[in-house]
């Protein structure tokens, strides 16, 4: 009796498979290799391979059984995730040794999380979205708790796990309701179900499902009022993990959310829903910025700022147009460079016997670590949205989408929020450049440069992020073109 094997177009998932295979290789060889940094370099190689495969797949858009597709959108997002993972691994290579964390599993988990993120970007079925969501999240839960000697890290992991589980539950409940209403979990099929002829446009079951989906995603991307986990988790987790989470998890959440909104709910996402998401964007931006104003700890401040940036990205989601998607993709790429760069600097300064993450300890940094201070200053300006850095273009792009969709008020709120955010980003610059170092024991007796060492991988990460921030800020065309590849339908 012949068995009918379904045709599985494995090529469609090739990038994810490369990453997963690398993760398994790292996991296995971790047992035999003593210097765990080798695992980090192997992971980087694997990520490079995945990037090459992604570039190779451009233009084909192979799909696998209506479950996932590697079209321009998912491939551009793959690049975002890979760059994020690579930069955060570079940061980790320097950071982990200082924290006395010698586990190769770290890199395995990063790679698995990346694979989960890539799957979320490629998914065309709600179950696959959930699959990717869980693969990503579980890796991140463990990574957040990775610093076993610090209670804060364990607290971060546990908080993230519990609240993330709630988020996943909301999401799954939404999927269940949608399935109950439409009879399918395929995104395109759901989109086809919402037709005026069938009179389904206002179906309460399906729309409740949509609402729950949005809530689930809002948890993951840390939108207000679902952001309560973010400051503690970002603060407690190891800094290299925070760098990875703040960009990757957000990007993955937005990736899936946009695809679902545009394909499944394209017809339904009209003014009412747009206003709802716009309100979400406004309170996220404002809440994140205002909370960040009060922070005295740089890491916590960046955590709240990343909440605010989720708000800016939501501004790009609101119009529901391709221009908005373009803006979001560009912003995610710009944000990856800026934010990971900032966390890289923090990871260097957080070293034991050095500065820690308290804002006042950054005083006078420009005097004895000029390049580090310059890099941090550039990232702060870029995050505020001051030209000529790449962050400005990101904001311009998403606000353009809003104005184009006749929602100029949203852009105005966004710009006002940018001005508010200048306060706390500038406070870092003020500390570094305009204050003189006090008579602190560390700074007085030994030369601080002896205490703060800049590991080579972190230098590479900083070089990449600083170059990207400046060059792409002056000439954003390559990034614009890349973002335009990531459109679908």
């Amino acid at each position, binding site marked *: 009796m012949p068995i009918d094997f379904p045709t599985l177009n494995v090529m469609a998932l090739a990038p994810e498979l490369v990453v997963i295979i690398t993760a398994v290789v790292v996991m296995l060889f971790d047992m035999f290799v003593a210097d765990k940094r080798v695992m980090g370099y192997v992971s980087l190689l694997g990520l490079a391979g995945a990037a090459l495969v992604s570039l190779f797949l451009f233009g084909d858009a192979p799909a696998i059984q209506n479950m996932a597709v590697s079209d321009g959108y998912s491939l551009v997002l793959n690049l975002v995730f890979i760059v994020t993972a690579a930069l955060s691994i570079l940061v980790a290579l320097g950071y982990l040794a200082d924290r006395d964390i010698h586990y190769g599993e770290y890199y395995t988990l990063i790679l698995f999380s990346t694979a989960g993120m890539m799957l979320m970007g490629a998914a065309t079925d709600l179950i696959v979205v959930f699959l990717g969501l869980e693969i990503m999240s579980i890796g991140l839960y463990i990574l957040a708790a990775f610093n076993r000697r610090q209670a804060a890290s364990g607290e971060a992991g546990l908080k993230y796990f519990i609240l993330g589980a709630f988020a996943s539950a909301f999401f799954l409940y939404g999927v269940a309701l949608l399935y109950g209403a439409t009879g399918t979990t395929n995104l395109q099929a759901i989109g086809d179900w919402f037709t005026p002829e069938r009179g389904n446009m206002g179906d309460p079951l399906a729309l409740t499902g949509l609402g729950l989906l949005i809530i689930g995603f809002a948890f993951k991307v840390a939108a207000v009022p679902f952001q309560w986990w973010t400051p503690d988790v970002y603060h407690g987790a190891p800094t290299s993990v925070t760098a990875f989470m703040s960009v990757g998890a957000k990007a993955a959440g937005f990736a899936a959310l946009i695809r679902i909104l545009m394909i499944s709910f394209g017809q339904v996402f009209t003014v009412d829903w747009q206003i709802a998401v716009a309100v979400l964007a406004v309170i996220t931006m404002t809440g994140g910025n205002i909370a960040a104003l009060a922070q005295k700890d740089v890491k916590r401040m960046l955590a709240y700022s990343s909440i605010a940036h989720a708000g800016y990205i939501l501004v790009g989601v609101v119009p529901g147009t391709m221009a908005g998607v373009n803006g979001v993709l560009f912003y995610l790429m710009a944000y990856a460079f800026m934010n990971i760069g900032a966390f890289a600097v923090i990871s260097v300064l957080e070293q034991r016997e050095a500065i820690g993450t308290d804002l006042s300890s950054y005083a006078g940094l420009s005097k004895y670590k*000029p390049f580090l201070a310059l890099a941090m200053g550039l990232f702060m300006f870029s995050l505020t949205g*001051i030209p000529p850095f790449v962050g400005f273009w990101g904001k311009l792009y998403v606000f353009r989408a809003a104005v184009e969709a006749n929602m100029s008020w949203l852009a105005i709120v966004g710009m006002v929020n940018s001005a508010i955010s200048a306060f706390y980003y500038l406070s870092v610059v003020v500390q570094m450049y305009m204050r003189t170092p006090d008579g602190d024991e560390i700074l007085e007796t030994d030369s601080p440069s002896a205490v703060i060492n800049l590991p080579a991988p972190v230098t590479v990460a900083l070089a990449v992020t600083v170059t990207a921030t400046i060059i792409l800020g002056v000439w954003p065309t390559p990034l614009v073109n890349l973002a335009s590849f990531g459109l679908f339908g």
Partner: protein
Amino acid sequence: MSFLLSTLLIIPLVGVALLVLIPRENTGLLKWTAFVTTLINFAVSLPLYFNFRNTADYQFEEFAAWIPALNINYHIGIDGLSLFLVLLTTFLSAVAVLSSFSAISEQVKEYMALLLLLETAMLGVFVSLDLFLFYLFWEASLIPMALLIGRWGGKRRIYASVKFIIYTMAGSALMLVAALVVYIWGGTSDLPTLLNTLELPANLQFWLFFAFALAFSVKVPLFPLHTWLPAAHVEAPTAGSVILAGVLLKMGTYGFMRFAIPLFPAAVPAWTPLLTTLAIIGIIYGALVALAQDDAKKLVAYSSVAHMGFIVLGIFSGGQQGMSGAVVQMVNHGLSTGMLFFLVGVLYEQTHTRMFQDYGGIWLKVPVFGVFFIMAALSSVGLPGMNGFVGEFVILLGTFKVNWVAAAFGTFGIVLAAWYLLTAVRKLLFGPFNPANDSLRDMNGREILIAVSLVVLFFVIGLFPNLLFQKINPATAELVERTNTATLVVDAGK
């Protein structure tokens, strides 16, 4: 297509690259490299004047695709409005660098690099013919200025620097959204194209003008958005004040003439009464507060508020005379106030105080300084024969034709200016000699060189104003015609 303007933008950046390579201990080489860079930039900008045709079109235009996917392009060029502002920028940058030679001893490398970056940003503002390119340079000038104030400034420098940057950013926030609206309505951000093709409904023009005007009013500064100015000017190092007063303030008035008025001409009649009133309040209020000052630098700062009020008055007089006078006065104010700040800085370097009570009768010790200070004060007052008179008189002529009350207040403002400036002269130079100033030395060769070059310009502009007006008038004539045609259309539609 000549590359002169791009060269002007790039030379300071080359200077920054050179500065990075020079070791930071070699402060002498750093200072001279920076100065030579600015001097070369000034020399390169001179052909702009001599090769400028006296027409209203954009000259020395350059166009390069920047972000083709978004139709945002690198389009730069100058016309009568911006020609002299470019020259003013290159000239004052050289003056600023030269005046910092003995004033700055710490982190000279960063200081000079920031001054050069600031020069590129300012030049970029004046030559940009693309909305987003303009916004980029506009905001980019904030960072070097804020760092200059905050790192090398006086006691309250952090407060002044943060206030400066937040105020200006908040003011410009709406401008970006307005620029986006214009961009989406017009399909492009290219200014010349927009001027030819853009058709906006009148009430939209009203609000867009407001958004742009807000940003520019903070920069000018127009009462009541001026409170950042005294703090920033007082706390900034001398060169910072020279550049801030000399060039940065002009970016606001230039923005009005280049973007707000031509793009939204139908809104101009609606906003003119308010802006004229605020300008006059600025003139009188600035003068009265300056009268009350004990701090020399603060007095000059408030005099800036007053003088910029004159320029805004001229811009919104609605006539060509007022506008041409405003452009000339922009140059004049840059030179006069730049010189005043420079001279106060010369004294401050030696005595580390700016309070009038610490001075008095120093004419005996520093006669050369005294002569230059009196000349700067008289130029600022507007004594005929010097540059200030030319600008102010033409502005008042233009304003009198449309609004004699405003002109009357403006003239009164000149009287007040004479009052507070001559009072400053008296308090500093004359009166009983304060023995604390016994060791004051007169100006050295470098300082005299700066002062003489400024004074020469005072008299050249004051005696031969047509050298400027012949280049400016065609552009302002076209600007006025644009505004009047639009007003006619709006009136006809009523």
